[in-house]
């Protein structure tokens, strides 16, 4: 399967396919316990990350808590 072109945190990115959201996090070296994943504007809960497949053109946001008032 060819690479998947997705938008990750607002920037274009190529991901080796096939891939799930869990694969994406692993590839980025991120711990799923400290990140919240939004896939095409829908929040994906942690247990579902491994069963949610990425498709070309998908938009993914990875957010976490930072300092704020």
């Amino acid at each position: 399967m060819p690479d998947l072109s997705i938008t990750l945190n607002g920037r274009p990115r190529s991901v080796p396919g096939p891939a799930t959201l869990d694969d994406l996090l692993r590839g980025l070296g991120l711990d799923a316990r400290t990140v919240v994943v939004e896939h095409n504007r829908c929040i994906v809960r942690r247990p579902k990350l491994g069963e949610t497949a990425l498709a070309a053109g998908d938009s993914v946001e990875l957010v976490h808590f930072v300092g704020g008032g």
Partner: protein
Amino acid sequence: MTGTLPATESALDTPLEIGGRAFRSRLMVGTGKYRSSADMVRAIEASGAEIVTVAVRRVDLDRSKDESILHHLPPDQYFLLANTAGCYSADEAIRYARLAREAGFNDFVKLEVIGDRETLLPDTEGLLTAARELVADGFKVLAYSNDDLIMALRLEDAGCAAVMPLASPIGSGLGLLNPYSIRTIKRRLGVPVVVDAGVGTASDACVTMEQGVDGILMNTALAEARDPVTMAWAMRRAVEAGRAAFLAGRMPRREVAVPSSPTKGLLE
């Protein structure tokens, strides 16, 4: 407590209850703008705060190290209150609130819907819309508001767990600009009133608590102090002193002097 000295500072007061949870400290602090994470952690410890606010932002994928604030603030030690800072519409704020809840700590949110980039004053219309939707979605909403009684009443009607009127604009350090408004809001609302934003130094915090409000949330006053840890120490005591003074009930203001020493028994 009348006439007796409390054994401890906490005996002066009842716990602060918000959204069904009780908190010892009436001082809440933000985690932004500190010069270092070590400064932040020490200042928060010195403040005695239990509720600590955090923001939701994209993970910086260019950095190899995970910079999540949770590395510095153990969630079992602090009550993490996520904000929707930086949101300029109800829809954006709702999106951020849902992402924050998914992080899995609690269903509280400090709701901010900002209406103007220069003053960071709230967009009250968007705020009310977002508050209603988030309350319906099960959130405990603490709404950052202007110091307007009618808006505060509407936020309470919308089901907010607390209303957070400003003392003065975010990050301004101008102190409590309208004590009358804050007092009126406190007198008329049933839900807790926590003054958020604008406190610059300890006397501001003390005067604010003397209005009878339930608590204060501050960030810049600590983060931008030359010595954040010492300022946090001062703020903790100012909040406690202001609260105690409110509970004690101040003497009336008079336009004339009244002698403190007996007027009888003076020498002829």
